[in-house]
């Protein structure tokens, strides 16, 4: 019977090749979708200029990447996890439990988070954290510190200087690392600046409850969580001129013909103002290397060194051109990679 033969031979072929599968010769990377473009730019340049194959870069988010990173040591686990936040203690423990003990932490630079709106929409040119807090908080304390539902429906309710447009903000969903930064550096800051925090504390709330009250975002449709990518945020803004969206700096840089950016606290977001720390809303980007893999996977160390080299991650390199804020302390990072210094 021809197809019985075909089945048997196909199965035999696959079984035979499975046993002879060669050792992995390319670097495997997974993690943050914010780091993904940078990692793929570096991977591409690495593949062009070195004898090693181009690394494979997956996205999936910081948490998912670190989870896979901590699955264990071996060829069928990833070598590098990209993260748009620092690795958490719980994740280090999970790693250790699976035998991943020596982890090298590499900070590649900073990512700026910008507030932008449709090019031809209302003139959202200047924002402060206080305005965002007053516009988006779920509940705002009154003079006596008692929480009441946020009454603001128009940006002019928040501040007369803002354009006359209904509040409509597109912010990253809770699964994004960007959301955390947005809440801490904008909303919480605004809560402090407006004195709302003080009033809540004075009314007898403890610190945790106050922070939680500060950072809870209204759910009446004026603030929309975007769980997809910045491309989705852009599409939403293009269809509604009154919308204001939260973007990564590199995304904005690639779409300046459609978006106009607003200052935060009077500072224009640029790679320079973020590097100097003047622009407040930014976060460091990292990748984590399994030290145990450096000996086993050819090209892993060379890739990491190439990634943090001045040619790539420096202020004149292709990553900075794409929107990465290069790390002023890049030399320290280069030393960490070449010495294979693990985390303590």
């Amino acid at each position, binding site marked *: 019977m021809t197809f019985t033969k075909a089945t048997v031979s*196909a199965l035999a072929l696959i079984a035979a090749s499975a046993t002879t599968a060669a050792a992995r010769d390319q670097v495997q990377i997974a993690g943050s979708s914010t780091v993904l473009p940078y990692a793929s730019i570096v991977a591409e340049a690495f593949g062009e200029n070195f004898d090693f194959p181009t690394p494979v870069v997956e996205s999936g988010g910081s948490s998912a990447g670190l989870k896979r990173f901590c699955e264990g040591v071996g060829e069928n686990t990833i070598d590098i996890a990209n993260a748009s936040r620092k690795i958490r203690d719980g994740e280090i423990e999970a790693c250790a439990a699976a035998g991943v003990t020596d982890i090298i932490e590499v900070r590649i630079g900073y990512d700026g988070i910008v507030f932008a709106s449709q090019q031809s929409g209302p003139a959202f040119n200047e924002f402060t954290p206080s305005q965002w807090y007053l516009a988006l908080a779920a509940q705002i304390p009154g003079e006596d510190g008692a929480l009441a539902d946020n009454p603001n429906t128009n940006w002019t309710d928040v501040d007369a200087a803002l354009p006359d447009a209904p509040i409509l903000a597109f912010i990253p969903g809770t699964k994004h690392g960007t959301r955390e930064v947005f809440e801490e550096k904008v909303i919480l800051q605004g809560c402090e600046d407006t004195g709302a925090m003080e009033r809540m504390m004075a009314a007898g709330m403890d610190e945790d409850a106050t922070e939680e009250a500060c950072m809870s975002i209204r759910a009446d449709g004026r603030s929309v969580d975007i769980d997809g*990518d910045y*491309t989705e945020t852009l599409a939403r803004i293009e269809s509604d001129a009154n919308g204001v969206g939260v973007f990564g700096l590199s995304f904005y840089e690639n779409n300046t013909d459609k978006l106009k950016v607003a200052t935060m606290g009077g500072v224009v977001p640029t790679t320079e103002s973020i590097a100097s720390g003047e622009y407040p809303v930014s976060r460091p980007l990292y990748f984590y290397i399994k030290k145990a893999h450096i000996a086993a996977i050819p090209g892993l160390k060379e890739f990491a060194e190439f990634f943090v080299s001045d040619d790539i991650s420096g202020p004149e390199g292709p990553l900075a051109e794409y929107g990465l804020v290069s790390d002023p302390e890049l030399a320290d990072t280069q030393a960490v990679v070449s010495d294979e210094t693990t985390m303590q």
Partner: protein
Amino acid sequence: MTDATAEHVPSGAGQGSLLAKDARTAKRNAAETRFKTYGLIAVCIGIAMLILLMTSILSNGLSAFRQTTIQVMVELPEDKLDKSGVRDPEVMAKVTTFGYKPLLRDSLIATVATAGIETDLDPKDLEALVSDESVAQLRDFVLANPEVIGQTIPVQVLANGRIDGFFKGRVTYESAALDNNVSPEQLQLAEALKEAGLLRTGFNWGFLTLPDGSDTRPEAAGLGVAILGSLYMMLIVLALALPIGVAASIYLEEFAPQNRWTDLIEVNISNLAAVPSIVFGILGLAIFINFAGLPQSAPIVGGLVLTLMTLPTIIIATRAALKAVPPSIRDAALGLGASKMQSVFHHVLPLAMPGILTGTIIGLAQALGETAPLLLIGMVAFVREYPSGPPEGLFDPATALPVQVFNWTQRSDPAFVERASGAIIVLLVFLLLMNLTAIFLRRRFERRW
């Protein structure tokens, strides 16, 4: 009593004539007309949606099949590219793309000057007219043909995505004025280059053959690796799912006794056919990667996962095809002294083959369009290396066509919107071909009793 009944019978049916419709007939006819209209409306809505979808995909995506290139006379000085003069590719490889970049820039400036085009763009802006990829292509070309060193050769380089977009109508002078990545002056220069015959837009073979490009090089991003990856996975699915599925169906349909166990199996197969495909991805990660130790991002794992996903579809289609073969065929074979197995393989199976193949192709087409199960096994990735030929290539990293669409829609450069729509067109063409084959097989070989 009898009178009453006699009066009743004609009063219901006999009063009306066939030509004049009574109230009930008119009502039934109206109901039928209404139902036909509903059906027609439903079909129209469907067609309208299809037209809307196709128009949006085609209008966005057709331009991906055209690509702007610039012809540059590149000078390749020996002192920069091969100081030793021995033309040893290994030594020459030490000159990285960073070393080739100034060469291309100077050559571009010279080309523009030779063509007699006046421009006050600074070298950096001028360089931005061509893709970053062109430097890498130039280096590969020189390493492959060391004899060109020392000469000045004409090279077709890819234009930058924004310049390419200008000739496709995506970028205009107005948008360029606002855009940080391209200026109206650059567009003017590009137009002048076109008039000088140095810049042309032609069919984009690279879109079908090149591997994926990073976020800064939309113009160089192609479907090569994705098409290969999809092809490998389809081969695996075909080689595994068809024999296993057909064998299982023949056993269940022709040989298995009807009892609780076979009922249970039947329910489970129908159930599996409806399981969300991501579940198979989780299974694949647990079994094939974590337990069996197969590599990540490899078509072999993708193929195995898709095989599991396609099996129920193939089994259900095959069983239906076997059931459709009339019992008289089996009885005749058995009556002439054929064994059960002979009757199945010599008579029933050949007659059921068109149905089986149709089911298989539809199952394959479904597998071709799946992204979700590939997400967890590492195939939703940026892969630039072509997998080698089978069978080793089955273990190399690759992506798949729908994955490429998914990846490109997430990129920030607007040029990737065009690429993503172009990839959808390629995927649709493949699906169309597969479904046409299925229809052809059915029409050509199907027998009715």
